[in-house]
């Protein structure tokens, strides 16, 4: 089990993050990382706090497509969209 509770510079994303999308991201992260995750917030950093690696990003995106019944535009994805759960939620919201 991983417990994380952090603040970050992406608080703007955190404030505006859609709770449904954040919940879907947490579920997808548990699936991709193969572990139970607790205390995940919109401010949790994907790479630094959760040790997500570049190969797992693709699996995460496909899991989110399934969970939210949507299609991700991989051409639009930028590094800053993966800074935190909130930043990714913002990217997903724009893609829907």
């Amino acid at each position, binding site marked *: 089990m991983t417990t994380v509770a952090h603040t970050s510079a992406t608080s703007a994303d955190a404030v505006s993050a859609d709770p449904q999308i954040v919940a879907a991201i947490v579920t997808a992260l548990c699936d991709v990382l193969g572990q139970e995750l607790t205390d995940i917030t919109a401010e949790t950093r994907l*790479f*630094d706090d959760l040790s997500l*690696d570049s*190969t797992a990003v693709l699996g995460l995106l*496909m899991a989110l*497509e399934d969970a939210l019944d949507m299609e991700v*535009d*991989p*051409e639009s*994805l930028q590094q800053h969209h993966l800074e935190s759960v909130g930043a990714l939620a913002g990217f997903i919201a724009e893609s829907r």
Partner: protein
Amino acid sequence: MSPPLASPVRHAPAPPAAGFLDGARRALTGTAGTPLVLLGNFEVEDEWAKGESGLPMLAGRNSAAIVNRMDEFALLLAGPDDHVVLKSAPDADYLDHLASLGVELPTVLVTDVQDPAHSVTVDALRSPRLMASLRELAGRGARLLPHGQSALEDELCERTGLASALPPSPLVKSVNSKIYSRRLATELGLPLARGWECETVGAFEEAAEEAVALCVDQGRRVGVKDAYGVSGKGIAVIDDSRRLRQLVRMVARGAAKRGDDRIALVIEEWADKTTDLNYHFTVGRDGSVRFDFVKEALTQNGVHKGHRFPAQLDPGHIAAVQDASARIGARLAADGFHGVVGVDAMLTRDRGLLPLLEINARNNMSTYQTSLQERFMRPGSTALARQYELSPTARVSFARLRDRLGDLLLDPATGRGLIINNFATVNAAAPADPDGRPWTGRLYGLLLAGSTAELDALDRAVAEAVRKETNPDD
């Protein structure tokens, strides 16, 4: 696949008597005394991948910062008459420590600017003072020996007048494609995993359906790889036909948006391996091929983690990789390539050998161990090259880490212990203003011991010392 063979033996990598670097110097520049300027532009694949369409893959900012500071590996490959370009000066205590081991260090040239997000070459191109020094070295006949040659190193050569020891980047890029590797294996009749080379979206769609029918629906996984991806990074391992088709649709959407259906991907059946191997040879300007060594490669989820050597190999496997080196090297030379080459290979569960998984026609991690193993490794000793993860909240000085490691560090008198071969990566991802949150650091080391048991004990002790350093309250 080659037949299973018996009687594993310890195969010492035994670099050539003249030394790996001096051999490469002669092979790549034509003369023995050519001074080199080494440049550790790691993950040069990112430059080769520009303009190519593959898988949507992104890494974190800190990962890039660490990779960019792997430039410091070049310090321990270069000879005393060479120069090394680094993004920042090494820790002075680290240099003193290396000197105390008897290592003859090259002259260090430091870029004027250091942006953690940029490779050493990008920083160098933005460094007028450094560029002037390189022009002066060019005038003295020095050659550039980068980690790998991309358009950025072409530009560096053009702007400084330094000739490269490697061919121009378009040629180097072409032989580093995983599509090239697969086609070469087929042409040479080398055993390879079932797979498909995909250069258009249509070809990818057709290949994926064949892969579903022949592999995934039969319970076997496939890997979808970026043709220009970094080893172990630009890859998706898939065991579900729905997921594979979903990935095809994602790639197709990206291509449609670009209005260009060209892609560069391969699909391969995921082989059931027991051991990853990395073998290494040098292709000279004259077309000669020198076999350098074979090592056991340590990987985790396909990502490189280190090496063990001597590799435990059957005599037949050693002969097979030497034969593959000669044939692959000759073909590379015929295509106009010269340079250092590492090939990833694997032993399968039935002790068969897949001798050509991918060609890395650039320096490999194993390349950077050669000078140290020549200097410190003794007959009968065994080595482990690996990385240790740290989570510091404040910058770690070399002196502090040296004191923490104490007797675990190499004793030149016995030839046993840890040699730190990259310290810059420890603090590479440190924020400008640490805020108490941990960052990821990485310490690279080469461990030498008299037996496997002694080596494993040393590894455990180093891991524990490093853990205590970044978790002092434990």
